[in-house]
C-alpha cells in the first residue's frame, strides 16, 4: 500500500547549519498492518509520519501510495490526505464547531454527502468511540481523552485507507490514556491499517503486527513485537526496550578529566536513584583503570543502568586488545570480584570487554 524508498528530510536552520532528521528510510506497509513506531525522542518518528502525508514534505527519496509517486509534481496532495487520515497529539479539533459538526464537516464539504446522511454517520461514529452524549457541545468543554476520541471519529468519517497516529496519548492525563487506547485497539481488530508513533510500549507490543524502532534518523530495526522487545538484534534497540541509561567515558587521551569522572558517576547514580552503587563504582574505577591503561590500548568505560530490570553494569572496553589484563593481575582481579556480583570477560569485534555486574 505504501512504499518508502531512501526517504530523507533536512532542515536548514536560520544560522545556515543543516539538520538531518530523516537520513535513509526504507519500508513497505501492507494493507491491514498495524505498525508501531518507537524510539527515543528526537529520532524522527513524528517527522516520518508527517512526511508520509506531506504535512512536512520530505527533501529526498520517494513515497509510493497505492502505486503512485506522491512526491511527483502536481500530485493532488489533498486527495492523498483524504485517504490517509491523521490523529494528532494535540487533537486539533476545530474549536468553532460542535463535536458533531467536527465529525460531519469534512464528509459534507469534501465528500459532498448530504447533511442528514453525514449526521447519521457521524452519530454512529461518536457512539462507537463513546462520546455520542457530547455531540452538541464545543470541544473546549471536553476532557483530553474525549477530545482524542472525537478526533479519531472525525478521522474515520472520511473512510480513510490508513490512519497515522502521531503520539495520540502523549498529551493525556494518565487516567485517560486507557480510553483512547481501547478505541485504537478496537480499530486494529477491525483490520484498519494503522501507523502509530507511541511511547506506550505495552500497547505497541500487544496490538502491533510490526514494530519500527527508529534511531538517529533511520529505521534501525523492523520486526515483529516479539522480535523487537524480546530478542532485539541491535544494542540500541535493546537499550531502548530495556530502558537502559548510560554514561560513557572515553579514556584515550592523556588529558582525561579524572576528577570530573567522579562527579559524573556521582550525578548519574543520584539521577537514577542507585546511590548505593556509587562507592563501588568509584572504587572499581580507581582500582582497575591503571591496570587497563597499562596495556596501552584506548579505553572506553561505560556505566549502564536498566530501568526495566534494575541491572547496573560497568564495562571496560579496550580497543583492539586480544586478552584481559586481569588474568595477569591477581590483586586487581580479586578486588573486582569482591566488589561486584559477576565478572564477564569476552572478546568482541571492537576489542576486549570486561563487564562487571554491580
Amino acid at each position, binding site marked *: 500500500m505504501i512504499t518508502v524508498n531512501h526517504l530523507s528530510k533536512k532542515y536548514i536552520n536560520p544560522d545556515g547549519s543543516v539538520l538531518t532528521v530523516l537520513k535513509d528510510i526504507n519500508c513497505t506497509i501492507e494493507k491491514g498492518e498495524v505498525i508501531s513506531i518507537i524510539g527515543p525522542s528526537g529520532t524522527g518518528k513524528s517527522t516520518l509520519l508527517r512526511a508520509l502525508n506531506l504535512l512536512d514534505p520530505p527533501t529526498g527519496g520517494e513515497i509510493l501510495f497505492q502505486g503512485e509517486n506522491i512526491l511527483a509534481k502536481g500530485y493532488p496532495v489533498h486527495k492523498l490526505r483524504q485517504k490517509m487520515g491523521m490523529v*494528532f497529539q494535540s487533537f486539533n479539533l476545530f474549536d468553532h464547531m460542535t463535536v458533531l459538526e467536527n465529525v460531519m464537516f469534512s464528509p459534507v464539504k469534501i465528500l459532498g454527502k448530504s447533511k442528514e446522511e453525514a449526521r447519521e454517520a457521524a452519530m454512529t461514529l461518536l457512539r462507537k468511540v463513546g462520546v455520542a452524549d457530547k455531540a452538541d457541545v464545543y470541544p473546549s468543554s471536553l476532557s483530553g481523552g474525549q477530545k482524542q476520541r472525537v478526533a479519531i471519529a472525525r478521522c474515520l468519517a472520511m473512510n480513510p485507507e490508513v490512519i497515522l497516529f502521531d503520539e495520540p496519548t502523549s498529551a493525556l492525563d494518565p487516567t485517560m490514556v486507557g480510553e483512547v487506547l481501547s478505541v485504537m485497539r478496537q480499530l486494529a481488530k477491525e483490520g484498519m491499517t494503522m501507523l502509530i508513533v507511541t511511547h506506550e510500549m505495552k500497547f505497541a507490543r500487544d496490538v502491533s503486527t510490526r514494530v519500527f524502532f527508529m534511531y538517529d534518523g533511520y529505521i534501525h530495526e523492523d520486526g515483529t513485537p516479539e522480535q523487537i522487545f524480546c530478542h532485539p538484534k541491535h544494542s540500541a534497540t535493546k537499550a531502548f526496550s530495556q530502558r537502559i541509561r548510560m554514561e560513557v567515558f572515553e579514556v584515550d587521551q592523556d588529558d582525561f578529566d579524572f576528577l570530573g569522572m567522579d562527579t559524573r558517576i556521582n550525578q548519574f547514580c543520584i539521577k537514577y536513584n542507585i546511590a548505593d552503587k556509587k562507592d563501588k563504582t568509584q572504587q572499581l574505577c580507581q582500582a582497575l583503570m591503571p591496570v587497563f591503561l597499562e596495556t596501552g590500548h584506548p579505553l572506553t568505560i561505560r556505566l549502564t543502568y536498566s530501568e526495566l530490570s534494575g541491572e547496573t553494569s560497568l564495562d571496560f572496553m579496550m580497543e583492539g586488545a586480544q586478552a584481559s589484563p586481569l588474568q595477569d593481575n591477581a590483586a586487581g582481579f580479586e578486588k573486582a570480584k569482591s566488589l561486584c556480583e559477576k565478572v564477564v570477560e569476552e572478546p568482541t569485534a571492537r576489542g576486549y570487554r570486561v563487564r562487571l555486574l554491580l
Partner: protein
Amino acid sequence: MNRILHILLLGACLALASCARQESRTLTFSSEDDLAGLRVATVAGCCYDLSLSKRNDIELLLYSFDADVLQALLNGKADVMVHDETILNSELRAEHGIKIAFKGKERFPTALVFRKDEAAIIDTLNAIQERMIQDGRMDSLKHYWLDEVYLQKKDYTHIPEEASGEPLRVACVTNMAPLSFMVGTEWYGIEVDLARELARALHRKIEFKLYDSASGMMSLKTGMADVMLGGIFITPERQEEYLFANPYHAYGSAYYVIDHDGQAAKGSFWKSLKKSLESNLLKEDRWKYITNGLWETIKITLLSILLGGILGVGLCAMTRSRRKWLRVTAWFYNWLMAGIPMLVLLLILFYVVFAKSGLDPTLVAVIAFSLNFASGASDVYGTSLDAIPRGQTEGGLALGFTRLKTFCYIVLPQALKRGIPLFQSQCVSLLKGTSIVGYIAILDLTRAGDMIRSRTFDAFVPLLMVTVIYFVLAWLLGMLVKLATPKTRVL
C-alpha cells in the same frame, strides 16, 4: 458613599465658581492706561495682542478661540477682553451680558489677500474699490454691514454672480460676521461682497471655500485658492509673503467687560439651556452645519474603513509573505504610518501631494485615513490570525481540505471572532481621528461645532452637542461592524 462624596464635591465646586463670578470688580475705564494690574484676555495671534504683549503691567491671557476668550471673561478668569469692535455686535453683547468699556486707539487697515503673482487681479480690485468710493457705493456698503443695519434686515443683500467662466476661488476664514460669514451654504459679508464685485468684473464664476486663517493662507500659497478674505490685517510680515489690495477699511479693537446693569441672560438653568440651544441650533438654521458635518464625518469614516480595510488585507498578506522584499516593504510602510502624526500626513497629502490635482478635500481625507487605517487593520488581521494555533490548519489539511479551503472554513471564522473587538476599536479611533479634517477645509462634525461656536460665542453647548453625537456614532459604528461581519458558522 463614594457617590455622595462626589456629589458634595461637585456642589462645592459649583458654589465656588458662582462666588468667583459675583466677586468680579466693577471697573471704570476710559483708555488703555487704565488696564494696569488687570488680567486681559484675547485671541492668540490676532494683532491686538501685539501692543499688549509689550506691556509688563498687565497679565495677558491668550486663547485660541473667540468663544474661549469670552468664556474667560464670563468666568472671572479675566477682568477684560480685547476683541474686534464689529464682530461682537450688540445682539451678541446683550445675549452674553457684556459691554464695550472703551475702544482701542490703534486702527488696523484690512484688505483682500492675493498671491504674489496676481498683481493684475489686484489692479482690477483696486480700480473697483476706487470707483465704489467715488460713487458712494462703498459708504453704503460699509453702512449696511458695519453699522449693524444687516442685523435688522434679515434678507442680507446679495450681489448677483456670473454663472460661468473660470471660477475665482475664494478662501474664506470661518465665520466673521459681518466681514464674512455663512448662513446655510451661502456666504455673506462686506468682504464677500467685494469678492463678488471682483468676480463680476473679471467675468468669472465665484467659488467659496471654508478655511481657518492658517490653512487659508496655505491654500492661497499653494494655488488652491486665488483670493483670501476674512478680516486679514495688513502687516509687514504678511506683505513679504502675499500681496494685499488697497485697504477698504481700518478696523479697531474694543475692550469688553461684564455688563452688571444690563439684561444679561439670567434665569433658571433650563431656561438658559433652551435659549442656548435656540441660538446654537435654530437661529439661521445652524443645525444644518451639524447635519452636514455629520454626513461628512460619516462619509469619511465609512469610506476609509472600507478602503483601508481592503488595503489592510494586502498589507497583511505582504507582512506574511515568503518574499523578503515584500515583508520589508510592508514593515517600512507600517513603520512610516506609526511614526507620522495623522494631521501631518493629512496636510502633506493635501498641500503637497495632491495640491495641484484639485482633488476634492473629502477624497484626500479618505485617502489619508485609508492609508493610515490600512496599517492598523493589517495589524489587527495579523494578530487575529496569529492567535489561531497552527494545529487548526494542520487539522484541516490532514482531513484533505486544500490550503484555501482550510483557511476559509477553519482559520478565518475563528480569526474573525477574535479580531472583531480589535477591529471595532480601530474603527472607533478612526472615527474620532477624523475630527482633524477641518484643517483641510472640510466641514466635518467638529468643525461644524467650531463654526457655531465662533458665531454664538457659546463655549459649551456646541461642544457638548458634538461630543454626544460622537458618542452615539461610535456606538452605532461598533454595532455596524458587528452586523457587517460575515457569519462565522460554516456548516
